[in-house]
């Protein structure tokens, strides 16, 4: 087990390093980073100032050294200054992450609590009206464009009926402000959980040991939940990592639609402000988050399923 965790940890570090290389490459494809500080409309800068900047930023050194310097600074928590906010990126990130966490956690809980029971229900009523309804819901949830759904939600619940606010976070933890973003963000993962649970549950319920449990007279309720669901549950659990990607992309869209002041909206704003330091930090932050989540899930999976060989 320890060796397994160690190997996964090593691969995780490798993945995050890869992400930094991608970001660094992108920063250099974009041309000389000094142009970030010189706007097109200005008078430009002296050659001497230009050279001084180059020396300060280490642009006269080879690319590998530049990458090393950048990584070294990043490890010490210095990710540069946001060119839009004129202060350290880390500070901006800390400020915005709570808002994103708020809706991301809420919609994950929602999708988990709705998607998985619906999946079990759909598997148990296979071929009947309930199953059809659940499957249509899953298909809709996976096909509906998040941003469009958000706008439709605003159109119906804010413009038409005026029940819910059309956006913004509100004061403190405002539930009415959260309802629309959380539901819109959670719909896609909800549909994915439903489908995964359904297919895995159907597979398990078809197996020999379930038939045996029934034959020996175990109560149906126990067969479904103890023998069936306990095993079927591992599949949606392992796919949670992949669903996390949907959350990360989803927050960008949902926060844009609902003017939610979180990391996703920050990413979009930094694109329009050409704020490369902020954007690159966000890319690395999300990559690291994903790697950590997948690592935890892998270890959890190995701990829950004794059949897994630790390779």
């Amino acid at each position, binding site marked *: 087990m320890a060796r397994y965790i160690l190997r996964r940890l090593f*691969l995780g570090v*490798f*993945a*995050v390093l*890869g*992400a930094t290389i*991608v*970001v660094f490459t*992108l*920063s250099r*494809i*974009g041309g000389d980073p000094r142009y970030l500080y010189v706007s097109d409309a200005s008078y430009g800068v002296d050659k001497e100032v230009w050279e001084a900047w180059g020396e300060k930023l280490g642009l006269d050194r080879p690319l590998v050294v530049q990458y090393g310097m950048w990584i070294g600074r990043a490890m010490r928590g210095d990710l540069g200054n946001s060119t839009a906010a004129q202060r350290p990126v880390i500070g901006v990130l800390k400020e915005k992450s709570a808002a994103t966490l708020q809706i991301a956690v809420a919609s994950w809980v929602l999708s988990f609590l709705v998607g998985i029971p619906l999946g079990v229900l759909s598997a148990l009523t*296979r*071929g*009947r*009206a309930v199953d*059809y309804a659940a499957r249509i819901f899953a*298909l*809709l949830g*996976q*096909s*509906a*464009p*998040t*941003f*469009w759904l958000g*706008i*439709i939600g*605003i*159109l119906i619940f804010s*413009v038409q009926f005026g029940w819910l606010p059309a956006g913004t976070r509100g004061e403190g933890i405002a539930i009415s402000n959260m309802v629309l973003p959380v539901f819109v963000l959670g719909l896609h993962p909800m549909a*994915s959980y439903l*489908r*995964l649970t*359904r*297919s895995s549950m159907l597979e398990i319920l078809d197996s020999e040991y379930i038939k045996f449990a029934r034959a020996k007279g175990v109560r149906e309720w126990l067969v479904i939940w103890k023998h069936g669901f306990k095993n079927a549950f591992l*599949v949606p659990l392992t*796919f949670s990592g*992949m669903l996390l*990607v949907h959350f*990360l*992309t989803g927050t*960008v*869209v949902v926060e*844009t639609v609902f003017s939610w002041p979180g990391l996703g909206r920050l*990413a*979009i704003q930094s*694109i*329009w402000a*050409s704020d*490369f330091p902020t*954007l*690159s930090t*966000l*890319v690395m932050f*999300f*990559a690291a988050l*994903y*790697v950590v989540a*997948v690592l935890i899930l892998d270890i959890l999976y190995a701990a829950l399923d004794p059949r897994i060989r630790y390779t």
Partner: protein
Amino acid sequence: MRPWTRGYGIRKMSTTAGAEGTKVTPRLRWTGLPRKTWLFFRRYPVIPMAILVLLLVVAAIAPWIEPYPPLETSTRETLVPPFWYAEGSAKYLLGTDGSGRDVLSRIIQSTRITVAIVGISLGISIVVGTTLGLIAGYYGGWVDEVIMRFLDMWSSLPVLLVVLTIVMVMGQGFAVLIGSLALITWPQPVRLVRVEALRLRSQDYVNLAQVAGASKGRILYRHILPGVVNTVVVVATLRAGTLILTEATLSFLGAGVPPPNPSWGAMIADGRDYIQEAWWITVMPGIALLLVVMAGNFLGDWLRDHFDPRLRQV
């Protein structure tokens, strides 16, 4: 357990005549043509196929069926509602947007653009993904390790943000968009094709081909590739829907199809400003998008269930 045998509806009543005075229970069931039609629709994905064929046809003949040039603006006829409204007119079936452009024409034109972009990027990613998957699965060893570790690294990237960064750095354009979409899509075929190639590698007929002196390239191309075609087709169909969604999302965020070209995502973004007075600008392209993505996903599921049931539902 099958819904149609329990009989909803008003078909032939086979009355079981009871004794005089007892209540006759009519047994209703589908028979004849309606039942056959229902079975046919249940068995084959007719409606999704029809939607996708319509999509391709519209994309192919778009310039000839657009009622108006999609970029033509009008200063007088802005925000005209669809034809069924009293203020609407048959001139603009789905109304006009804030610049007086015909919504229907713009939807038709974006169909063409979307199909072209998604088609090309899907083609690139499938070819690259399949090739890498075949190589990784067939050669194994360190080649496999390198490809798969790179894939792991790539999958951990928040692709949407990376693509947005690429667009910020390189500017908006069709080439950048197609490249970005291909970058997002290529990993999935690699994983699935690799597993198939691993399985086929140890089959007898592959070993026999090797004994007969076939080169590695020939074995890959003639003996392994045909075996993974099913997987590739299923993956391609399933990815098509996701790609269309991603393209629309990018266009919505302003990093997709370069303006002033119409695109479903960008149209929805434009419509946000008029959501109070002109819902159709937002809703209409969204319906087109939803129908196409649903049709793609449904067809993909169907193909997988029939040709490659080993693939797991996600």
